[in-house]
């Protein structure tokens, strides 16, 4: 059966939280519901389900990759054409350590940013069902479900105090 989304727009967090309770009471699962807001409300404000993330693994993987590339650059390039300069050894540990440190941190930062974007499921070519008023302080509840259940959800959202219901594909 075709799935469809609707967006219920609410003016304050309390009404939104009550609407979420009503939807759950009507049998809607966490994965069918999503909240859209223009500000970072404290976790669980609307009784929403918070999916887990693996962001903390990204900097570790990035740091390892960055260190590997930095070792390859510092040791590899010097061994490829060993010219003694300033009486220092070809593989001068203090000098290598500095560049390896920077490489490690760069890898960690790049992977963290990649992780943030990946875990946030961005970029999204299409925003999907949305309302501009969300960035003006309104809060949206998105229900994505089968056609019949969406009709039921619309009624529940209206009864819970939604100021407007928008329908999407």
């Amino acid at each position, binding site marked *: 059966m075709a799935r469809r989304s609707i967006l219920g727009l609410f003016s304050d967090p309390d009404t939104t939280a009550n609407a979420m309770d009503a939807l759950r009471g009507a049998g809607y699962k966490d994965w069918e519901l999503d*909240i859209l807001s223009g500000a970072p409300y404290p976790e669980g404000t609307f009784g929403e389900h918070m999916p887990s993330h693996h962001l903390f693994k990204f900097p570790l993987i990035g740091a390892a990759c960055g260190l590997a590339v930095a070792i390859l650059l510092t040791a590899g390039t010097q061994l490829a054409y060993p010219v003694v300069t300033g009486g220092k050894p070809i593989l001068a540990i203090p000098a290598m350590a*500095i560049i390896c440190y920077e490489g490690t941190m760069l890898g960690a*930062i790049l992977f963290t*940013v990649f992780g943030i974007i990946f875990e946030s499921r961005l970029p999204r070519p299409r925003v999907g069902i949305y309302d501009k008023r969300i960035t003006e302080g309104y809060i949206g509840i998105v229900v994505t479900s089968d056609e019949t259940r969406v009709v039921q959800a619309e009624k529940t959202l209206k009864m819970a105090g939604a100021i407007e219901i928008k329908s999407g594909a």
Partner: protein
Amino acid sequence: MQQRVSLEDRQINRDLLRGVLEHPLWWFALVGFVGLVLLAGVISTGYMITKGIGVTGLNRPVMWGFFITNFVFWVGISHAGVMISAILRLTQAEWRRPVTRAAEVLTVFALMTAALHPVIHTGRPWRLLYWAFPYDFSRGIFVNVRSPLIWDPSAIFTYLTGSSLFVFVALLPDLAVLRDRTTGIVHHVYSVLCLGWRGTPKQWKLQTVAGILLSALILPVFVSVHSIVSWDFAVATSVEAWHSTIFAPYFVIGAVHSGVSAVVTMMALMRWLWKWDKYIRPEHFDALGRLLIVVSTTWFFFFFLEVLFGIYGQESPEIALREMQIFQWPWSMLFIIFLLTAYFIPVPLWLFPKVRRSITLMFWTSILVNIGMWLERFLIIVPGLARKQPLTFSWGTYHPSIIEILIVAASFALVAFLLLIFSKVFPLIPLFEQKEGQLFAKELRVGRKKVPAVIREE
């Protein structure tokens, strides 16, 4: 005491997007003025590249002059931004909210400007690719990683990439606000830039975690960058007066001193130009003033130690350098100006709460600090080189040429120019941080008194 005012999201959007969505005359006038100064710098650089490095005042033994002084200065300024932003985020300091974006953006532009200076200083910028880029090209020889002049680009590249990404990640929610407030082609540009941000709880959660995680990753880079810049000097065997083991922390804390002062300057300008009195309040200047007292006194302690170790060791190059810095004209005059402006005028003034809460006084004292800190770098570099040879007949001096003065002036214009352009495209105060601050602010009644309180989420 906090002077918070209650604001609705709509009003926050309207106020803070004023810089992007409105087109005041003063903005065009300022861009025109700094653009002219920048143009003078570009022409001067072009002239120098065409005629050769001889048009500057650089000569044996003073091979580093205004360009390298300005390089160290701008690297220093770049330290404030991310340091302030990162530390305040990690400690969840409530007063960070209007400060973070401006500080981060200042970091990026100051660092970009700093990175230009060694390129200009080479006289033949195109050759820098052979010296600094890790590729053997057609010569079969890679760059020399044992040289401090290779450590610098690696540190600056890491810091610049990290801080730029830090700014971008924190901009995502605000770009979505701009997407929702614009039409036509501008709307499409912001739609692409915000990557389709919707504001789901997971996106907000990751935004918060990202702020903390990136702060924790950038802070060690921040310490390494100015440490490495200081090692350009400290590991140079030919200049005896630069051999100091405390150069790395001395440079880092000096960078924080000048950088935090630059943030104060910028905050005052933002308050005056965009009339953001409700967002940038005297309490923020008060907090920055307190921070500056601690930072500047720590910096002064390192400066004192550096001079003390130099004199106490009784090494002739050190003694020659200190004598030149403190007693010989015109260095003696510069030394007095440096001490007065970097420490002895601003710090006693900051001890008074009335001064810390006066935007005008904080603005001028922060300018004084940066005059002093620029002179500090100049007094380390030029007299050090002028006395680097043990034999007196090899001693020389340095007179900056008009070309160098114009290029230095243009570097200030470049940072101002980039900041003005940024302010026209992106909000300088993070909107979502302000909205979050409003959510977490409450007024508590204690007895008969109403006290402003902030709720902190664990």
